[in-house]
């Protein structure tokens, strides 16, 4: 049977019935992205000194305490970063204005509304560092996102996206990350595409990068047009991925090839 037909069947099966019915999980067991890395890369991730992600974590901790004459620091409101343990597991979520926002956008909102600071570019070093700092507080915890109520429409849209073929290669996310994890694509071992280690230090980037950067790279890989950093489509996809990660613990700062 052609993969497209299988994909269509899967989508049909998933979307059948009432829109509010709890969705079925498609992965029998979840595996962290770390498991698909070489021994050397895994060793770098677990080395609390040599893992370069800690350079960004240090920066995040410095920024956490930085305030101005008229603007409070993160610490002034929240105390220690550890006070936000668990926060990262609950994003993306629908905010008070009805918009689905991820952790980075929530931090940005805090900066602009509470610290009266100018907005930062999505993939900027300070915003990545703060996101990593907050994500790190939830290391070892699983995602706990809500896909009920106002979030459900975003979830359904992202799930459709996940199973829809696109780009010159005509592949859906599903083809690499659900049908073929563990198999080789030239020198790469395909993973389940889990979002648990972001922002991540990627050897290929030689720097820390966001999940949106990774998703843009995925889209380019299959020769599809990537969305912008912070695009609603990617935030919705983050929600679907966080739900799909089930019990997998967060691991930031992770290291990937």
């Amino acid at each position, binding site marked *: 049977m052609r993969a497209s037909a299988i994909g269509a069947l899967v989508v049909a099966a998933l979307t059948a019935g009432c829109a509010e019915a709890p969705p079925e999980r498609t992965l029998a067991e979840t595996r962290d992205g770390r498991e698909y890395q070489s021994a050397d890369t895994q060793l770098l991730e677990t080395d609390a000194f040599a893992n370069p992600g800690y350079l960004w974590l240090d920066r995040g901790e410095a920024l956490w305490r930085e305030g101005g004459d008229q603007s409070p620091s993160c610490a002034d409101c929240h105390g220690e970063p550890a006070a936000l343990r668990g926060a990262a597991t609950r994003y993306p979520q629908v905010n008070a204005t009805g918009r689905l926002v991820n952790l980075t956008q929530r931090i940005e909102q805090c900066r602009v509304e509470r610290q009266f600071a100018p907005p930062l570019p999505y993939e900027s070093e300070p915003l990545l560092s703060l996101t990593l700092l907050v994500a790190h507080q939830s290391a070892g915890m699983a995602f706990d996102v809500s896909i009920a109520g106002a979030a459900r429409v975003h979830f359904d849209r992202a799930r459709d996206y996940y199973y829809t073929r696109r780009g010159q290669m005509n592949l859906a996310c599903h083809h690499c990350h659900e049908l073929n994890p563990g198999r080789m694509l*030239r020198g790469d071992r395909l993973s389940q595409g889990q979002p648990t280690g972001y922002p991540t230090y990627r050897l290929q980037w030689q720097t820390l990068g966001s999940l949106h950067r990774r998703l843009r790279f995925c889209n380019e890989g299959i020769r599809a047009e990537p969305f912008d950093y912070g695009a609603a489509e990617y935030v919705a996809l983050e929600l679907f991925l966080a739900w799909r990660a089930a019990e997998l613990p967060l691991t930031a700062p992770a290291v990937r*090839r």
Partner: protein
Amino acid sequence: MSIHRRSLLSATGAWLVLAPLSLRAAPRPIADLLRESFGARDIRDERVALSMPALAENGNSVALEVSVDSPMTDADHVREIHLFAEKNPEPLLARFHLSPASGSASVATRVRLADTQTVVAVATMNDGRLFAGRAETIVTEAACLDFLI
């Protein structure tokens, strides 16, 4: 059930793109590089232990450890350790300067490797002797290369 084999193969074929380091000049053999740095002096393959992973999944950052069997005394110590990767556009990776105060001749770093190759570490001793150690690492090429900088 797996993806249709032919569609996966055609997809991977289209991913064959030029590596970003393709503008480099043809590599020179390690023997030439060593002669340039050390003249005709004898380099013995002993005393230097060079350790790298057998397989690196990205050449941008490969763990490397080098240690030299030396008492590191005033009378007998390592002065320098030179690292060469002959297939890199610039084969000299680094030069480390040690002294009796080092106590132990052992250095670790992370290097870039342009290709699968043998890296050579050359230790220069205080009395002028030269020792070398070698290690090969296979560098695998990623399926998708990220050109966004």
